[in-house]
């Protein structure tokens, strides 16, 4: 996959990692029917960390991050987000979901609402923010992703890159402390990828905790402070990006890296 197509200077100094734990996953297992899709996952994410998850298709990357905001249910082990344990307790789920933003591969904007409405919907109904305030926040984030002028259009009228940026803005409007990205650029054309990655880098610079499933290795190298490699539902290797790319330990990782960096 191509290197990150950004020409700006990335300011790694701002990306501070505190040592407060944001997400803690302990011995987590998940099955789809009788298919063991996540096996004994252990993962600690500190606040401000930027983690990239990579791995071959079907290795359970999406499933893992979907478990974190309970879009999928895990069957054993614990997931603790920001001190709250994810259980079947609806209140906990609500609490966690409003602190974890999620950004999908296919954006999943609401086509019947304008961009602005997309961004204000959840703050108004979930956070009970006054409309005015919600709209101001929304405009703030839309400016941040550089499309304030599209606020009154409908998603169908935007390009893919713009839509993905709206999706990010929409999550940000809930002021989450953690952002999950599931292959946010893989449905986009090369030019648009750049737009979206730029936005993500900016977020990283502001110290947002991020978990990102992506194969943009340039992004991983420059932004992440940890890369996790998954295979067959397990975390096979994790390391700092430099180490990970230059000096992979496991055979599986080597094979994978040779493939995706090779061509």
């Amino acid at each position, binding site marked *: 996959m191509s290197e990150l197509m950004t020409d700006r200077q990335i300011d790694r100094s701002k990306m501070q*990692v505190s040592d407060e734990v944001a997400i803690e996953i302990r011995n987590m*297992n998940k*099955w789809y*029917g*009788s298919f*063991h899709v996540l*096996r*004994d996952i252990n993962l*600690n994410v*500190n606040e401000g960390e930027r983690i990239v998850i990579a791995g071959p298709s079907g290795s359970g990357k999406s499933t893992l991050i979907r478990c974190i905001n309970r879009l999928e249910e895990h*069957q*054993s082990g614990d997931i603790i987000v920001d001190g709250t344990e994810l259980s079947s307790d609806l209140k906990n789920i609500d609490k966690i979901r409003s602190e974890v933003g999620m950004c999908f591969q296919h954006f999943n904007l609401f086509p019947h609402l304008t961009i602005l409405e997309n961004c204000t919907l959840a703050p108004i109904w979930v956070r009970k923010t006054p409309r005015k305030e919600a709209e101001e926040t929304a405009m703030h984030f839309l400016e941040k992703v550089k499309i304030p002028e599209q606020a009154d259009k409908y998603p169908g009228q935007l390009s893919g890159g713009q839509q993905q940026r709206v999706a990010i803005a929409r999550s940000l409007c809930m002021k989450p402390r953690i952002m999950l990205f599931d292959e946010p650029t893989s449905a986009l054309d090369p030019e648009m990828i750049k737009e979206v990655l730029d936005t993500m880098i900016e977020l990283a610079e502001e110290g947002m905790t991020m978990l990102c499933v992506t194969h943009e290795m340039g992004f991983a190298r420059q932004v992440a*402070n*940890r890369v996790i490699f998954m295979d*067959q539902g*397990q*975390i*096979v*290797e*994790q*390391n*700092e990006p430099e*180490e990970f790319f230059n000096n992979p*330990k*496991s055979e599986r990782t080597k094979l994978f890296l040779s493939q995706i960096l090779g061509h």
Partner: protein
Amino acid sequence: MSDVSFVRTEMLPQQEPPGSSVGIVGWARANLFDGVTNSVLTIISLILVYFVLEGLLSWTFQSVWNASSLTECREIMTATWGKTHGHACWAVINDRWLQLLYGFYPPYPAEPGVNFGENTGAWPAYFRPNLSFVLLLLAVAPVLFDKVPRKLLIVTAVYPFLMPWLMWGGSIWGPVMAAAGFGIGFLAYRLLTPVIGGLGGIIAAIALPVIWWLFLVGIVAAGLESVVSISIPEVESRKFGGFMLSILIGVVAIGCSLPIGIVLALGRQSDLMIVKTLCVGFIEFIRGVPLITLLFVASVLLNVFLPPGTQFDIILRVLIMVTLFASAYMAEVVRGGLAALPKGQYEGADSLGLNYWQAQRLIIMPQALKISIPGIVSTFIGVFKDTTLVSIIGLLDPLGLSNAIRADAAWNGIYWELFAFIAFLFFVFCFGMSRYSMYLERKLHKGH
């Protein structure tokens, strides 16, 4: 962050999921008792199903099959179970099922004494509707399924002429000569075009068959019949009834409405204002009134609209009206198919120099119709169900027959058994077809 670096040394094996989430227990947990509301719903549903089945099954299966009248049925019930309620008297179906299926279609050749004497049971003429039905399946098979050998298309082409002959009987020359009309049109076009030009050829290709059908078919067919007589006994359409009638009306209506519907759809799509207005007017008119009013027209008005002295029987009139009715719906189905075709197909045809009709016939219609098949099947189901309305104007379709049967002194007072049987047959037919159209829809989805 010293804990950052991690390498898994040995891969974990695939484990069995916790017991509660698989197997029957897991399934039941996930699908039936997932939360309080769901559990309550499940229990209520189970109780409901139990009561319905209990009543229905005992009524259906603890029943009387052999009796010659309702009274006898009741006697048997009283003797067996001590009460007459809660038990079906299927004897009426046993007694009348042939009638419900074929109406009054003679079980023997319609003109007794021709070859078979007065012996009514000798040579069941039921084979004629049966054969028509089997041939129908053969005729539509190549249209509906890709895998069927293309040769069967011959059956499809012959069927429209063969079916009326089988059903109504008479000399074979009538249908043959009617089919010959198409041959005449074709020949006229082929032979006359070089002589009198394309336009003349087209006019001749339309006019000659029409003249042939209107004035000559009868004479020629009669002539041929007197020379080489090939005929089977005639059956008046009055004798048609029961499910045979429903199927006949449905099949004829769909068969005839297809070409009309195509023409209407093309007219509705065209940019010729008047043609378009006429087509839209017709379609919206037909779709705007209930079928029953059209049947009223068939039964009380059609004769008024036609030249004085025109006589043709009620079944034909109903066939005409139901055909018109189906055409309007068919036109909308075909229009959907046309709309689904990319514009490039029209342009591709144009750029090759195909003219309008060639383009329609060779490029547009084959594709549009294929897309429309699910819609056509649904229309057919609708029309088939709607054939029950003919009972209101006194035709003896299954519902009409149920009235007639209940008017027989032997079965006066019977009720549920008849309707259950009729509903069951309709269900089997329609359900089968709707499944088929779903299968088609799925296939179409995959194909694109």
